[in-house]
């Protein structure tokens, strides 16, 4: 990554090319990862509602997948799932 000099930065430390959060993979330090069992899932979408990092991708009311780039392994999805369809597994 090439760093900019102070002369090339916008004044006031603002960020112009927003959103930049998509380039910053916040999920790379997790110690647990959600394992999703689609057979148990009823698509109630509680996990989607509770996920603090918008990791759970949904289309037409159905869960598609988990974007693990941004999942920090907090386990909230697993805790709120009424069907036990999400289990947190240790990363080896």
């Amino acid at each position, binding site marked *: 990554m090439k760093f900019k000099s*102070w002369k090339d930065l916008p*004044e*006031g*430390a*603002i*960020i*112009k090319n927003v959103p930049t959060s998509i380039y910053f993979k916040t999920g790379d330090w997790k110690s647990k990862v959600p394992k999703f069992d689609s057979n148990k899932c009823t698509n109630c979408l509680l996990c989607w509602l509770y996920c603090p990092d918008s990791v759970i991708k949904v289309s037409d009311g159905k869960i598609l997948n988990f974007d693990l780039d941004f999942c920090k392994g907090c386990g909230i999805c697993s805790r709120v799932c009424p069907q036990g369809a999400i289990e947190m597994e240790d990363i080896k």
Partner: protein
Amino acid sequence: MKTKIFIKHAFTGNEASAYAMKQINPDVVAAYPITPATEIVQIFSKYVSDGEVDTEFVPVESEHSAMSVCIGASAAGARVMTATSAQGLALMHEMLYIASGLRLPIVMVVGNRALSAPINIHGDHSDTMGSRDAGWLQFYCENANEVYHTIIMAIKIAENANLPAMVCMDGFIITHGMEVVYTLPDEEIREFLGVRKPLYSLLDIQNPITVGPLDLYDYYFEHKRGQIEAMINSKKIIEEVVKEYNERFGTNFPPFIEEYKIEDADFLIISMSSAAGTMKEAIDIKREEGIKVGLLRIKTFRPFPYEVLREKIRKFKAIGIMDRAETLSTMGGPVAIETKAALYSLPEKINLINFIFGLGGREFTLNDAFKIIEITKKFSEGEKFPEVLYIGVREEE
């Protein structure tokens, strides 16, 4: 004061400040009252209630909130003003650095007052000297008339430099002392100031930005370097704006340092704020006795005008420097310490002596001024003195 457009008023410093704010008609004013600056926003709030300004006036629950509101409004692109003193300024301290780091040209009038403890409401410079490294421009005014005009100039300087500015006046001595103030018509001020052109605006939804992101070891240093550059560049802006103002309105305000009878002087006194007025009177009297003493009044303390100061004092052998604040570093007051630092790289050897005076509003009399002149004279002739002297303090009962 050559032009006839001026209108003569009898104003206290606070009244002059509120009147200048009314004429500037800022978009947002957020403030919390504190002696001796309370009247500024009290009078201004009346202008708001009477519909004489278009300002969104936000009466907040603390100075920390006042500065926070000012920061938000200024980041939105508004022209923003406030006023405070002493403990209020101290409570704002955290937010001062955010205002300057985000490069927001907020203009704040400060009624200089001693910081507690012991609790005191009277004038000294301990409050704004405590904020001297917060990245704000600081202008110290000698009288109410200068306060009025400096507030107007400060708006343009701050907005051109994209840096916040404090306009400082001695608590009670200027804030509550009534003097003649020459004001300009509203339209002259509005034409001079124009409309603020912000660096960025939170309300510009076509160009969304992030303001105030986390900035760690990989970029914080670069952003601070940029801010330092803005302070360096502000010197040129101060010079240009003050020149433009003086030419336009026939005034004679100094951009950085005012000279008083220094051409033929044998030695110099350096002072700031209202004490410079007393010192000028003392110099006039002492000159009749044949003592050739001159005065430099530092108007702009931030950025510190060290280049100008060096050139003005390098031919003198001895200088007495007055400080209405202590650093408690055991090296004396901030004006003396920074002046010493400015002179270090000069080949000339200039002897400096520091006078601390007027703490907690202790009256600074003509006799005190005479004493400073007489000691500096002896000092210039080679007599030895301590590096820091305290003028007006009781040494014995």
